[in-house]
């Protein structure tokens, strides 16, 4: 079950990639067609350059996309496969997650309020509510750990077989791994994601983040 969010990301990444390839291909075709119009002959070089640039960009993007989404491990065999997700399922899950941060940590209240009207002691008191609540959500649904155990500001050696998404190199990047440098930020990763699952989204409307509360007397 823990693989679910990742699989969903994969499902969404593919249509997204397809859409920009299609748009770029259409643009390149339009640019090439423009070259055939005699009145456009004066702009042959910039148009051709633009088409070439677009083509390179598409290639680069598709390569980048492939790197971002490595082939997923085979999904575990389950006895009851979940039904195909209904419309707007992913959006509904994101809203539900924000709803969780609001319910436990009042995050939306915190961000939607005008902070400039209050002094630091009021903001501080509110921040504790947000901190405790959102930390609970983080601890319950993720297992967040630092990527590097070294102290920030100390010299570190990046392991040779490091994952590209786990370390970002700054400053002068030359030579071959293993790279050496000063740790600026220890980084964060999560060992699992265990989000609540949506039972159903029903209509096309997005669910509420937090319902309005009405006390019946």
């Amino acid at each position, binding site marked *: *079950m823990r693989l679910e969010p990742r699989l969903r990301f994969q499902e969404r990444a593919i249509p997204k990639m397809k859409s920009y390839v299609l748009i770029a291909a259409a643009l390149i075709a339009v640019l090439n067609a423009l070259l055939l119009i005699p009145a456009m002959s004066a702009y042959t070089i910039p148009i051709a350059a633009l088409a070439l640039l677009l083509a390179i960009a598409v290639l680069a993007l598709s390569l980048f996309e492939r790197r971002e989404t490595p082939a997923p491990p085979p999904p575990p065999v*389950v006895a009851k496969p979940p039904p195909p997700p209904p419309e707007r399922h992913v959006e509904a899950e994101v809203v539900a997650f924000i709803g969780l941060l609001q319910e436990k940590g009042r995050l939306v209240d915190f961000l939607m*309020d005008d902070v400039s009207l209050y002094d630091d002691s009021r903001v501080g008191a509110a921040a504790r509510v947000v901190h405790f609540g959102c930390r609970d959500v983080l601890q319950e649904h993720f297992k967040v750990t630092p990527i590097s155990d070294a102290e920030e500001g100390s010299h570190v050696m990046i392991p040779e077989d490091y994952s590209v998404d786990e370390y970002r190199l700054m400053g002068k990047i030359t030579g071959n791994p293993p790279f050496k440098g000063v740790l600026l930020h220890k980084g964060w990763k999560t060992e699992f994601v265990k989000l609540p699952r949506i*039972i159903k989204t029903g209509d096309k409307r997005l669910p509420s983040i937090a319902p309005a509360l009405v006390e019946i007397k």
Partner: protein
Amino acid sequence: MNARFSLGIDLGTSNSAVAANNFEEDEPSIVEITQILRPNQIGESSTLPSALYLPHPDEFPEDALKLPWVNDSRTAIIGHFAREHGALIPDRLVTSAKSWLSNFHVDPRRPVLPWKSEINEPKLSAFDCSRLYLEHLKEGFLYAEQLQGRNWDLSEGQIVLTVPASFDEVARNLTAEAAEAAGLGRVILLEEPQAAFYAWTARAGGSWRNQVNSGDIILVCDVGGGTADFSLIAISGKDGNLELERISVGEHILLGGDNMDLALAYTLQAQLESTGKSLDAWQFLALTHAASRAKVDLFNDESLAQAPISVPSRGSSLFAKTISTTLDRPTLEQVVLDGFFPITKVNDLPTERRSSGLQEFGLPYASDPIVSKHLARFLTRSLVNVKASDSLKAFVGSSAEATDYLRPTAVLFNGGVFNAAPIRKRVLELLTSWNGGQPVRELEGFQPDLAVAKGAALYGRHRATGKGIRIKAGTARSYYVGLESSMPAIPGFKPPIKALCVVPQGMEEGSELLIEEKEFGLITGQPAEFRFFASEVRSGDTPGQIIPNAESELEETSRLEVTLPAIEGLPEGQPLPVQMNPVVTELGNLELWMKHTGSDRRWKVDFQVRME
């Protein structure tokens, strides 16, 4: 039966848990139970809060509270969301249903829960609630296993359900019956403190035999969210061939961690009110949560002097309306350690329950919040019990003569309250002070929230495979049937009720007795009623023994009812001679039968609730 797995179910007063042990694996593991987290959202957790919420038909969208294994839209919600949401709408929330099972002022089968609420929807009985919790746990286990690609047949499993050691036979039978109604089949019942002990032996690995010695008396001290439960286990034998016997169990005490959090919240509320800030009901709940968190933070980190508390208002304006204060260490220690676990004298016993005739028959919450005094009472009564029989007296030896209470030599803590090291330390100090300064050992390596479920799964495994240790236990109490006194009625004088001992303490599983000392004459077709008594401190009583004054010596637990069918060849209205025939089944259930003296025919006696 060739069992392939065991299932340990901890049906707790405030939280339940399940552990499963596939016999192809070495150790039991906790089953993550799927439950409703919010409307339209489900997820898993290692515990299922024992809370049940009855929603209004228009409160949530249709199917928003539907579990994967439920086909129809069910009305009751169990678990996390039920507890969180229901806390704000107490009229629709049932909690502590388990304690209602052993409350014999209200019939556990009568639909009265939520207690004193004014909802229009049909209410539930304590029995219904227990059945629904068990059904959820059962389906949750099957569903979790299905997700892993495994399909179990429950009949291939050894299912163990834990009950408080303080439950009497009537509450135990009701629990077993609820399990059967929930589709779990016939389950084995195990006392929770024993389950905690099994879990400890597994966690300590092979070394547990080195950590205890022959002659040790181990106190299992279990304080959960809503109840405190004590037991003593004696270790005997030699050369590594240890024998364990549960020699004493405590009374049902409704006092636990929730009381401590509430006490802290009231203290903080007074603190806030003294500065002119007031709290509404919702904020008070939030304050209770915040106080509980601050308590954990301060107890876990001894270097902290205080913990901040911030309580938002119900509205969306967070900056303007959040109220803040701090919980400092002296206040925490004063409220929790000195309030619930003060160093008291061993002869300082809890103040007795109010016995006013106008008392409302809600749950009999402990009227004295001091756990130290309840512990003193338990150890004092344990000594009385042990001294009553020669076989138990052998465990404590001559040392027992010198004191007024039974001295434990080691303690095993269990229950969420003992997550806090300072509370464990305080209890050890208390026992040491009673012990004339001689320290009492703590058995390390407990896991207070999940140990009981794991221990139950282990016990199931031991029973199914015939390997591993077993604690000798048998019935925790002795039981008696009231005999109508044949004294002539005298105005202003109530004749004492005599009672016949029918089940001795420690009567073992899979055994039965025939009480030949007394013959009853029952008329066929007419219901016959008997008063039923119990005691946990009379280990010396033997079957057939007569107790002269039942009302002062024993505790009345329920009513017994039996109706003999019309028998062919016997004229109606003629009394039929029968004798009591108690049976303790292999699964640990006590059954009472009336056996015809002239033949092998017998009739089962039903336990009825004693109404006042």
